[in-house]
């Protein structure tokens, strides 16, 4: 069993700088947990506390059933892969992967079988005789992963392992790591600033900000039901559009009235929640994702929708899609529409969006209202 239990973990650095406030979560055996958030949010500090590279100021950490707060990193049965790794330049790939086991005085035959098995998993068997300088960036990163795999740890910790690779390689390596997780059937804790990595790789993601957990959820749920304004803005690219509005009653229907008078409908569930919690006549934030705005010319909606109208300031063709930027209530709005729309700067645009795609957040607490 390699479940992880982080119970009210806190990290305070000298000078009373709190890096992690109250990290509380259970990581199940064989889960792929991704810690994601902007720089300074405490994700790397949390990972380093799990590794034992950072002392825990308060709280309890368990790996399996074992309390490990005071256990040395090397005795925690973990392996770590870093953004900045180094390989032994004079050794072959095989020797690089075997070296850690040699240090532990593992028998030669066992080393051989473990190295070959890891190389097969990483599809680098044909590179075992090469030296690091003859490898590409992606291949080197695979060797670094291989060095961790051969240890057969209970938990893999990865600290931004792909950040040094170019965009194309990162996409390839994402797949490699995801496949690896399935094959190894081990617990992975992965730190990244990149929400795309988090969304594509994690079984659950932990979104952090200022040392606090904002939301722990599956990628899909974090995308569909962000817990607050921060998560809503952080998850998704381009990021969600936000506008301030007032909750009003239009006859029997609950709507949001934007600052320019635009009326936005919302789903029945959200309307009921707003009514029940006394939000009528109060200010809220509405959020709508760029991909949920449809160009009325090519994808008009037929029922249960609202409309944004504007003049395009900038149109960015991305290939299959086109990003349209326009101004509404003094805010820049982004729409991600089909490139068939063939819109250009200066064109008028009408965009439809379903009421059930509208998110509503409390203007003060910034928490989502469901």
């Amino acid at each position, binding site marked *: 069993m390699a479940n992880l239990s982080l119970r009210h973990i806190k990290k305070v*650095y*000298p*000078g009373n*700088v*709190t*890096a992690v406030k109250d990290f509380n979560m259970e990581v199940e055996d064989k889960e792929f947990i991704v810690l994601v958030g*902007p*720089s*300074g*949010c*405490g994700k790397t500090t949390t990972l380093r506390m799990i*590794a*034992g*590279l950072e002392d825990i100021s308060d709280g309890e950490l368990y790996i399996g059933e074992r309390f490990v707060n005071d256990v*040395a*990193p*090397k005795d*925690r049965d*973990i392996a*770590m*892969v*870093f953004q*900045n*790794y*180094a390989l*032994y*330049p*004079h*050794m072959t790939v095989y020797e690089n992967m075997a*070296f*850690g086991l040699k*240090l532990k005085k593992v028998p030669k035959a066992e080393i051989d079988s473990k190295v070959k098995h890891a190389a097969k998993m990483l599809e680098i068997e044909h590179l075992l005789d090469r030296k690091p300088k003859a490898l590409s960036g992606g291949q080197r990163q695979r060797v*670094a992963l291989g*060095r*961790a795999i051969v240890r057969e740890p209970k938990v893999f910790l990865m600290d931004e392992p792909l950040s040094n690779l170019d965009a194309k390689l990162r996409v390839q390596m994402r797949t490699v790591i995801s496949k690896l997780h399935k094959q190894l059937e081990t617990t992975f804790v992965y730190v990244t*600033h*990149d929400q795309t990595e988090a969304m594509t790789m994690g079984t659950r993601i932990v979104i952090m900000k*200022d*040392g606090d957990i904002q939301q722990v959820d599956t990628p899909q749920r974090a995308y569909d039901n962000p817990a607050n304004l921060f998560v809503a803005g952080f998850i998704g690219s381009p990021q969600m559009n936000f506008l301030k509005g007032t909750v009003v009653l239009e006859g029997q229907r609950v709507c949001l009235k934007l600052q320019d008078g635009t009326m936005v409908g919302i789903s029945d569930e959200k309307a009921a929640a707003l009514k029940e919690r006394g939000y009528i006549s109060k200010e809220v934030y509405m959020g709508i994702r760029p991909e949920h705005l449809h160009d009325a010319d090519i994808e008009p909606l037929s029922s249960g929708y609202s409309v944004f109208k504007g003049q395009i300031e900038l149109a960015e063709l991305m290939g299959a899609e086109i990003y349209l930027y326009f101004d509404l209530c003094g805010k820049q709005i982004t729409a991600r529409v089909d490139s068939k729309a063939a819109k250009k700067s200066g064109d008028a645009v009408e965009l439809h969006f379903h009421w059930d795609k509208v998110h509503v957040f409390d203007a003060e607490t910034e928490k989502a209202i469901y």
Partner: protein
Amino acid sequence: MDELREVLSKASEISNRDIAVIWDKGCCRISEQGIPGLSYEEARQNSGSSWKGYIIYPFEAVGKTYYVCIRAEGCRSEAEDQLILLAIKSAVFNRCSEDERLAAALKEDFDTAVGMRLEEAYGQRLCGYVLLVSGYEDCLNEVLQIMDNTIETTLRFEYEGRILAVSPEGNIEEACESLSKNILSELLLECTVAIGGRSGGIQDLRRMLDCCLEALFIRRTYGLSDTVMNYDKLYAYRAVSCLSPGTKADILAKVFTREFKEMLNSELSITIEELFKNNLNLTDAAGKLYIHRNTLLYRLDKIFKCTGFDLKKFEDSWLFRLAWLINKEK
């Protein structure tokens, strides 16, 4: 050991007294009956006094303290005792390995003869960058093996719980970074590698060792997380540590206003650190922080509003940096 016994035997014969040398790992005595069960700790406590008919003298040799117990029977001559101590010191020195002698020479003053002897023994091996690796806990052998495979060294030995090494590598910082990363990956240990500077001989080696120690001190004092500390790149910290307490307080008060202290959080601290690391280059710093350049500008503007210091301007940023470093001092 034989040489030491020989010296003790000769001294005992000449002075007609029992002599024993106690060091932390044991006792070497000439008389069959002498010093029964006197431990190193007891010898330390009794040093300079008479104990069961013995006079106990401490002396330093090759970086260790020894205690010599001389039976004070009959007439006791101070000069005779000093001669015995000298003879024993020389014997201890002679039975040491070259590395132990070098370590001893680095700890205490050594004369020209010792210096020449060491220069002769080590020759070109003393020439190169002086490194000090610390924080390897009980993994000395593993760290040495990693070192063998990562960085070229002409000399290395354990010195006061750290590894002292001389390396002829051209790109020493890169080599040390690799060493530190490999130790971290293999052993999950965060060792610190201090680079003292280039040594050209025994005198330089000693000076560069001091630089390494100062670099490690700076790392502790300013709570730096870097695992490779190049002394030559620590001018700012060295300059700050020389300021008087009054000047430091003045500078701190200018920057660390109440509003700034209230606003300062982990995110802002990292932003400031990264900006300085990237020589105030906004694009590079924003890239390292994975934020948009405008987000960085927004954060800098917040700092400007509550301190009056515009970190985009050199004039403002250097004083701000001084204050930032002073605030980190422990």
